[in-house]
């Protein structure tokens, strides 16, 4: 448990698994994501934060393939994936969760996860898929509700189901869209531990959140989005003391007063 408190650091020399170059997405003229460039290294956990409407979910959609960028390129594992449909990206090893959870409501929890194992990267047989589903459900602590219907779950369990389904596809890159929003602080701690455990098993993770506390403990690096633009990208502590970030979150009033430990505390307190 002791190593869990300090996030694992990934060497800078690791190759990029995902690389976005100048990606822009406009919805009717309004850019939701604006000339964004960044990369995610193999094996790291990259956190992306930003206030509501910063373009976080759009970004997940762009990487997952549900949304087509207006301009720019997205490279994954060394190749341009711009032309791939979402299911092809899933086969390539990109799995995502949805901010507004999207369970298959008519199916039970286990069947939900079986779908991921049947059709994901490995495309398992039925028997193998059921086995994998139960392993994954155990991993996310949802096995005791395996026979509940997809809509008979608490918020926290719905988020777990989202993660379980994505994990069942055996991804190389996992995109988590606000899986900690709406959880209690105990549940957030559990989620943080789970994400670290997933990462240790070799999965590269991109975590999108708007809760700073949640993301600070889990990310190797943090990227801050504001109005679709990158305003900071650094190690967690450095990002949190960046005046532009504080301004984006709390307005100029806080930014003018320097980034003292006091302000930081307030900042965390307000956003949680």
């Amino acid at each position, binding site marked *: 448990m002791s190593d869990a408190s300090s996030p694992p650091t990934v060497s800078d020399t690791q190759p990029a698994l995902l690389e976005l170059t100048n990606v822009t997405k406009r919805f009717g003229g309004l850019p939701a994501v604006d000339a964004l460039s960044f990369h995610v290294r193999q094996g790291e956990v990259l956190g992306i934060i930003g206030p509501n409407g910063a373009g976080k979910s759009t970004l997940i959609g762009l990487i997952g393939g*549900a949304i087509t960028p207006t301009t720019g390129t997205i490279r994954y594992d060394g190749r341009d994936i711009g032309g791939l449909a979402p*299911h092809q990206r899933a086969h390539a090893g990109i799995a995502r969760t949805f901010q507004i959870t999207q369970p298959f409501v008519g199916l039970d929890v286990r069947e939900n996860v079986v779908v991921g194992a049947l059709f994901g990267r490995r495309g398992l047989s039925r028997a193998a898929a059921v086995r994998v589903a139960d392993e994954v459900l155990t991993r996310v602590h949802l096995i005791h509700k395996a026979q509940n219907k997809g809509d008979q779950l608490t918020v926290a369990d719905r988020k777990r189901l989202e993660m379980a389904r994505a994990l069942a596809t055996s991804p190389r890159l996992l995109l988590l869209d606000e899986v900690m929003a709406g959880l209690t602080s105990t549940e957030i701690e559990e989620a943080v531990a789970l994400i670290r455990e997933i990462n240790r098993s070799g999965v590269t993770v991109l975590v999108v959140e708007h809760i700073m506390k949640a993301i600070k403990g889990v990310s190797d690096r943090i990227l801050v989005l504001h109005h679709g633009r990158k305003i900071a990208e650094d190690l967690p502590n450095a990002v949190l003391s960046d005046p532009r970030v504080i301004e984006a979150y709390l307005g100029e009033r806080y930014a003018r007063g320097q980034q003292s430990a006091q302000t930081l505390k307030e900042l965390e307190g307000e956003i949680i």
Partner: protein
Amino acid sequence: MASEAEVRGQVVVGAPVPAPRESRGWLWSTLVGLGILALIGILAPLAGDFGVLRMWTLIVMYIVLAQGWNFIGGFVGYAAFGNVVFFGIGAYSVGIFLLNGKPFLLGVAAGFVAAGLFAFLLGLPVLRLRGHYFAIATLGIAEALGEFIAAKDIGGPGGEVSLTPPGGGLGVFTLFFYAFLGLAVLTLLGTTLLTRSRFGYALVAIRENEEAAESLGIATYWYKVGAFVLSALPTAIAGGLWAYWSLGFEPGGEGGAFDVNISVAMVLMTFLGGAGTIVGPVLGAIIIEWLDLQTTLSATQIHGPLLGLLIVLVTLFLPQGLIRLVQELVPGASGTGERLSWSAQLRRGMRRVRRFIAANGV
């Protein structure tokens, strides 16, 4: 609370995974369906009466049509409102072949291939549409094709086809009856296979949440096209059999090969029985078509309004279908398999009835 915490504590070190109990529901459903069809197959010809045989032939035909619609409407949940188009293609293929002196079975085969191809080519554009647009597009296609055949005098002036009777009296019509019945059995077994297959899993996932299905690696578009073709195939064969059986037909209007009411019947029957279930379309088709034929015979005047009223009542009060109603009301039918005392079962049953009524807004 404590037990839940314990469970969580254990799983970290690897709790024994409880083996999933495989539900046997599919097997029972299939056996019930086969049993019903066998019963019809034995009893209907026993009467030796032309009218009785005719009634059951039509009922079995509608079983096939409802089963066919179930593939796209029940499993994928797409509101296909023009599946009669495949029926019409099957019928006109047989009509054209017979009129040109070609063998009947070749016509059926031609209709089968043509309908499958048509479903594929039509599916490519229309399955990119969703919701109401898909429904109206399919509805419109069927209407338009019927109109086209009438305008181009295909099969006869105004599209009216009349065929020479095959001869052989009741015997031949018994043969037609068994052909329909065989088709119904095959489609039933096909449905069972589908529920047990990857393909079926994909269709259900699309129905439950298309976006999530796509994100998990399901090529939703192609699976939908596949389901659409699958729903066309038995429908086209039924249309081909019907063409020769009825000896004469028109493209549009009531009783025509492209009659919109046939599309609606498929939907209504599947709905009443239970969309996406194995035996639901069989039950729904028997009930609706039997009622329909009874009112046509004894109350021709109010037959139309009655059918409309029936549709309204079914959608208002039984939107989940009879099969789900049974699952709700009969403990154990949904596969939870708990043992309870009779009084507990009764109490639970009462609760279920109340919940079901509340949920359906009756």
